[in-house]
């Protein structure tokens, strides 16, 4: 039985799809429906929530502090996505153009971080980025070495590097959080770009170069448009999880750079305000839907053009 036969055999198709459907229904649709009901509910005691179809929880999203945190989540996720794309594209290009023998190894290197738990990797980052961390150890060593060098050549009295070493503050700052998100998301950004580069017909590039376009022109007018789908996929697959990042702002942000997911977490735990937490998480889901819709429109318009 070939794959196409499934289309003529709806019952066989159903038999294979049913477990997945039941799984989705039980562990995705049903919990989501409960959250949806909660989002229109009110706490009536310490332990009970009643769905009263109030829009209060959604209205609370438009408090200035929540909007501020949403805005912060958007721009942090946005910057992280852009940084990811700039780093990911050249890496994907290198892998796609590498010798076929080396490709699996390069891809393995990209996947390798997934073999270690995210929590452990984030703690490792804490160790590297701290004011007493490894990165600052290195910077301190560089400062001391150059300062000693300046002293030796008789320029010490000018104090060109300042009187003492000031450690770089990464943790508890937006840049530290962005660094963490880029670190976590990079593989997700590389893989879709890589796969679109893989599928690319290389003769387009040869034609462009043969016909007199330079390397940059070829990249900008031929390569980039032809791999745009991969770039958009990479952007979405980076941006959406980044928007809902919880662990990175919690640990690398040290509670100073909270994003919206940290507020949601607090509603479900300490604040004991499940209705508001539900409304907030669904709001985040709606944003995701909008982004995916934009993506579909993009694909559709592209299909129309060609």
């Amino acid at each position, binding site marked *: 039985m070939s794959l196409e036969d499934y289309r003529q055999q709806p019952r066989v198709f159903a038999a294979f799809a049913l477990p997945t459907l039941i799984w989705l229904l039980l562990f995705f649709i049903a919990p989501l429906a409960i959250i949806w009901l909660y989002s229109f509910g009110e*706490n009536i*005691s*310490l*332990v009970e929530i009643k769905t009263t179809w109030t829009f209060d929880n959604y209205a609370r999203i438009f*408090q*200035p*502090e*929540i909007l*501020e*945190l949403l805005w*912060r989540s958007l721009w942090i996720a946005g910057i992280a996505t852009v940084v990811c794309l700039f780093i990911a594209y050249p890496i994907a290009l290198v892998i796609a153009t590498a010798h076929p023998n080396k490709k699996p190894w390069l891809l393995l290197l990209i996947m390798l971080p997934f073999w270690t738990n995210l929590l452990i990797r984030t703690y490792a980052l804490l160790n590297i980025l*701290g*004011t*007493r961390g490894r990165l600052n150890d290195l910077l301190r060593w560089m400062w001391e070495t150059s300062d000693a060098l300046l002293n030796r050549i008789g320029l010490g009295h000018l104090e060109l590097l300042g009187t003492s070493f000031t450690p770089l*503050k990464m*943790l*508890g700052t937006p840049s530290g959080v962005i660094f963490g998100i880029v670190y976590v998301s990079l593989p997700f950004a590389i893989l879709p770009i890589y796969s679109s580069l893989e599928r690319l017909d290389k003769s387009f590039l040869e034609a462009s170069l043969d016909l007199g376009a330079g390397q940059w022109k070829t990249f900008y007018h031929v390569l980039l448009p032809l791999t745009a789908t991969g770039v958009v996929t990479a952007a979405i697959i980076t941006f959406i999880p980044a928007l809902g990042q919880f662990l990175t702002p*919690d640990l690398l942000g*040290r*509670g*100073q750079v*909270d994003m919206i997911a*940290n*507020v949601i977490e*607090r*509603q*479900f*735990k*300490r*604040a*004991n*305000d499940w209705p508001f937490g539900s409304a907030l998480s669904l709001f985040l889901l709606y944003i995701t839907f909008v982004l995916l819709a934009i993506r579909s429109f993009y694909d559709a318009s592209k299909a129309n053009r060609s």
Partner: protein
Amino acid sequence: MNRRINTPITRRGFLAGTAAVGVSLTLPKAFAADGKVNFYNWDTYIGENTIANFEKSSGIKVQYDLFADNDELFAKLKGGNPGYDLIVPTNDFVERMLDADMLLPLDHSKIPNIANIDPLFMDRNFDPGRAYSLPYMWGTIGIGYRKSAVDGVPDSWSHMYSSEQYAGKIALMSDATTVMQMALKSMGKSLNDWSDENIAAAEKMILAQKPNVAAFAGDNGQDLLLAGEVDLAMEWNGDILQAMDEDDDIGYVVPKEGGLLWEDTLCIPKGAENIENAHALINFLLDAEVGADIADFVYYATPNKAAKALMSDDYLNNPAIFPPESTTESSEISVFPGADTIRKIEDAWTRIKAG
């Protein structure tokens, strides 16, 4: 002893249903037979031989079970008592459980060792006359600090809340209620006075200090202190005691304005089936020698006066375990302020986080 880690004031267990089902499967009714008692306690929170000694002297078999935090305890009992006879909730959860009508009154006539308890502990607002709970261990929230990095003992909350002296070297906790409570203490107010003005004043104070705060540390203030990332950390005394064990340069002080006092208590939950035996076990735990044995192992402060008399000077003179009397007098026990106030506090906290 790190069980204190991440034990905030206002959390809710959210696994009620599943937890209760899980336990009822593992705790069949057979345990309700005579000569048994089901004891539900924190991890590493009893003497090494306490249970065995009780079984030997009383002939009662103890089914000993562990929970990780108050949330877990609350969650397991929320959907109905799965069979526990003796539990160890913290003071504000005693209040919460009383609110939800989850505890049985204690028969003091069956617990003669109540006489061993320091009278100071016998009247608490969260349980007047100790009708439902008896004290097991207690402790404080204060400031852990790096001795070599501070100028004298940082014995005021103002170092953390309103001074730039240690800018960038301060770790507050991440729990809204506790951090706001200590802000209130630093202003000389009661940590249970949640008037709107007080919430606003605390919010303003923390917002202004936020740039000087290195971290709102969830469960790792002592780690930041040990790593040298901060020099002052607001923490549970047990966590700092642990850090002091590793590093002589670390000290602990409850500021002169006072801090937070917590107390873990012995309670019998509704639905308990071995009430007599639970009383016997409570009485045993409050015995002088047994209490001393437990305190010596868990290294928390015991409210048992008779047990204290048997303890070593090392334990009694450790200010991280027993703060001086002046500080315990200025410190307060947290009262559960009700859901509406919690929401106000959490909203203020969101504004602090957004600012």
